[in-house]
């Protein structure tokens, strides 16, 4: 075992972790915003909006993220109309393309999570809120959102972890994330297993921390479901 090589590899991989995490963070936040919009369309009760939302979810969940990423990064950049548009300074950067593409994809999955969570709000609670004379906004803020949030958390934490794993794909559009640094080290040193195992360990620990964080949040938000202290 060459400990010097191990520690050097590990340090180089860790140096790429901020990029992986920022792709993850920005795409998850942007994805949640898009999902909020699409969820609203999905439950709006207006046919065209609802149809659009259904199609959005089906398309982004029914095709591989890799090809979506390539449509955005290689595809859009090849169109003269896009190169001439105001969006070009934004889209020419591979980081922005990665965030946009991952956000569009996770929005499809998050929409279904949000929709399921809102459908699970007991009807009686909504009726009671109306009977008290709450406005729609107040009812959303005080009744629907808090209950839906608790329903959504388990599935949401799975989606967050799945997004960390998805960020590895940005290595294929020239970004230096943990995955691509591991591949570069493997290429340069011809050591097969070690760089990939160390990179895997980093991803695993990140996912573990996110999973544990969501579990703690879930526990904190549902004190009423815990057994009473005797």
């Amino acid at each position, binding site marked *: 075992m060459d400990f010097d090589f191990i520690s050097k590899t590990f340090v180089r991989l860790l140096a790429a972790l901020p990029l992986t995490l920022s792709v993850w963070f920005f795409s998850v936040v942007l994805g949640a915003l898009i999902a909020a919009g699409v969820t609203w369309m999905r439950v709006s009760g207006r046919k065209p909006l609802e149809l659009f939302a259904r199609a959005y979810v089906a398309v982004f969940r029914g095709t591989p993220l890799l090809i979506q990423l390539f449509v955005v990064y290689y595809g859009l950049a090849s169109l003269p109309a896009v190169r001439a548009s105001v969006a070009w300074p934004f889209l020419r950067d591979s980081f922005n393309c990665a965030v946009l593409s991952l956000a569009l994809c996770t929005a499809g999955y998050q929409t279904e999570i949000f929709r399921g969570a809102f459908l699970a709000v007991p009807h009686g609670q909504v009726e009671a809120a109306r009977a008290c004379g709450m406005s729609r906004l107040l009812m959303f803020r005080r009744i629907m959102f808090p209950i839906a949030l608790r329903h959504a958390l388990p599935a949401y934490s799975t989606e967050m972890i799945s997004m960390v794993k998805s960020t590895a794909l940005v290595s294929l559009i020239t970004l230096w994330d943990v995955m691509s640094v591991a591949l570069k080290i493997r290429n340069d040193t011809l050591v097969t297993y070690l760089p*990939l195992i160390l990179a895997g360990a980093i991803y695993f620990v990140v996912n573990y921390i996110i999973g544990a964080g969501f579990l703690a949040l879930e526990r904190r938000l549902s004190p009423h479901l815990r057994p009473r202290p005797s």
Partner: protein
Amino acid sequence: MGDLAIFGFGPGGWGLALLQGAAMTLLVSACGLLIGAAIGGLVAWARLSGRLLAGGVGQAYAALFRGLPELLIVYFVYFGTSTLLTETAHALGHEGFVGVPSFAAGALAVGVISGAYQAEVFRAAYLAISRGELEAAVSVGMNRALLFRRIIAPQVLRFALPGLGNLWQVALKDSSLISVTGLTELMRISQVGAGSTHRPFAFYLGGAALYFVMTLATTRFFDLAEARATRGMRRATS
């Protein structure tokens, strides 16, 4: 050439190549799903066995392969098996690099990932079998093989079908990652077409459309299979 002519079947058209790529995608995903079923069945059995060591190994497998990026697993399986094979060949006196066929490595990678998820599906399906039926089978004197074949397997398959349908979609989408090993499946063909015609937008969009059609069509197939498998069961609704 016109926008649609590049997807045609005439000279210079990529229609046939894309369809062949799609067929390769279906084939490698199906093999991956089957390998995953074997792994998932073993892991589920290990976790249900009640033995501490086997249960621990099963749980570790599921946790590990669900916590690692799919792309990393694809690279690890591809480079890992090739290195292993090359070193074995060297030990036997063979010179040079020996690569694992990318189809085999790809199907194995998809299977290894799918297996971790299928284990959970199978375990939940087994736990959904009513205990009374298992007791009844034992009390009429069925041996373990017969019990498995007549009582457990048919019901596990029935209960696992919806979950397997989802995992089939996941396998289909994960198979696009195998393109990094050079296997000429749909993703790879789209890349080749995009590169040689300088029309990335059309090719990636076309590839995505084919993936979408495959997901829709096969989902319909799984829905039909589910309807058939549950035709003898009473529904809670209607």
